[in-house]
């Protein structure tokens, strides 16, 4: 351990929900997108799943809202170091979409992509089984554009760069392909509890 002379840090708060190396952002919700926030109206939003599926399908805003509602209440963690506790997102479980397209048995990974072209790769197991949502509400209100509105992916058990804003689609693959940050040196999976920030962590 390399002690930094004279460094004490902020008061220690024991929070079992805080992954290693993270701090509590409190009421802050930093925005870190690398691209211009798109001007995307709900009427222009679509979401498609294709690749290794039985029936590729595109949903528009109204069709997506006809699926059974589901909410995520809990914590989120950003690779830059902040965590945010007790957030509430409203939308639909990604399982509801996957059930319609029926993934092939050979599908192992997905590339999630945004209407801006941003991409993130995820194991299929990380976006199914009640672990991922498409959301359009935050705290009971429509999701702000700078936070990914009209609709974004939320995969709360991984670092938040995986939770693609302005979600446009998922491509199911039989292999892993790096997305935008993963191609920029970040970890392929990004589990905050194992502090998988960068490639090699």
């Amino acid at each position, binding site marked *: 351990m390399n*002690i*930094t002379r004279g460094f004490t840090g902020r008061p220690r708060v024991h929070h079992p929900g805080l992954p290693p190396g993270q701090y509590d952002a409190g009421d802050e919700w930093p925005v870190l997108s690398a691209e211009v926030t798109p001007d995307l109206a709900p009427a222009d939003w679509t979401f498609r799943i*294709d*690749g290794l599926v039985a029936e590729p399908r595109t949903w528009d805003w109204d069709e997506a809202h006809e699926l059974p509602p589901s909410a995520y209440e809990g914590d989120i963690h950003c690779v830059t170091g902040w965590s945010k506790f007790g957030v509430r997102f409203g939308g639909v479980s990604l399982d509801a979409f996957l059930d319609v397209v029926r993934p092939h048995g050979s599908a192992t990974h997905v590339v999630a992509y945004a209407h801006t*072209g941003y991409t993130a790769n995820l194991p299929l197991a990380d976006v199914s089984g009640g672990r991922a949502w498409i959301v359009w509400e935050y705290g009971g209100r429509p999701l702000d554009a700078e936070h990914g509105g009209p609709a974004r992916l939320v995969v709360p058990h991984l670092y938040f760069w995986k939770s693609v804003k302005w979600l446009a689609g998922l491509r199911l693959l039989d292999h892993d392909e790096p997305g935008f940050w993963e191609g920029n*040196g970040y970890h392929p999976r990004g589990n905050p509890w194992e502090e998988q920030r960068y490639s090699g962590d």
Partner: protein
Amino acid sequence: MTELTTETAGATEAPGTAGTVRGAQERFAPPTRFAVPGRIAVSPQDASVWRTATLTGIRRETPRVSSFRFAVPGWPGHLPGQHLMLRLTAEDGYVAQRHYSIASAPDDSGHIELTLDHVEGGEVSGWFHTVARPGDRIEVRGPLSGFFAWPADRPALLVGAGSGVVPLWSMVRFHRSRDMRVPLRLLVSTRSPEDLIFAREMRSETTPVFTRSAPEGEAVGRLGAAHVAPFMAKQPPGGWEAYVCGSNSFAEHASRLLVAAGQPVERIRIERFG
């Protein structure tokens, strides 16, 4: 400096036919414009190693901002616009980690510089501004990320506010140190002349915008369309690559101004504080 490979930026494949499966050799390309293709390939090794950085000097820039110079044995080199992760460790093992942009241009001095705002109540910036002295050792890993890097291959229009000027200033320093001919311009928003970081070093490449108080005879006001228009009217061949850095609200404002002035969205890279 480590040799870095420039990737083909903006390369887009035609989207696959609906429902078809791409072969393993073929990289998936989203059927939408890729907003911010990476500029350079990054080394996973560089990002994974913690290195000891020894503070060798502190230089005051403004009443709230100072530059910190470090000797970093083994530093693999960087391009301007890249950042690093830094960590401080308390005696009880408590660790604080932060991402900071690199302020210095790439050189072979074995040193790098960070230029840090003194954030109210900030545990890390507070340590730097009130405790740190030459000889202190911290740890860094990097350089990180390639999307905001500027390999000096394209004309660059830099737009920053406050300490958002730091990674942009690394680009200006790089440009000067190699006596480059590729066009480079900086628009920087600051509260007042006293708060303008690197003011002593700024020359004709820089256009400051003062939001609260300005030198005698200069305008006070927010960055606006009129500031951006002259750069868009006189574009270099091939157009500008725009780099925007600052708070989220500034980044939203500045990027909208650029889009409204005709700058293509896929040629605007944004680094936001947070």
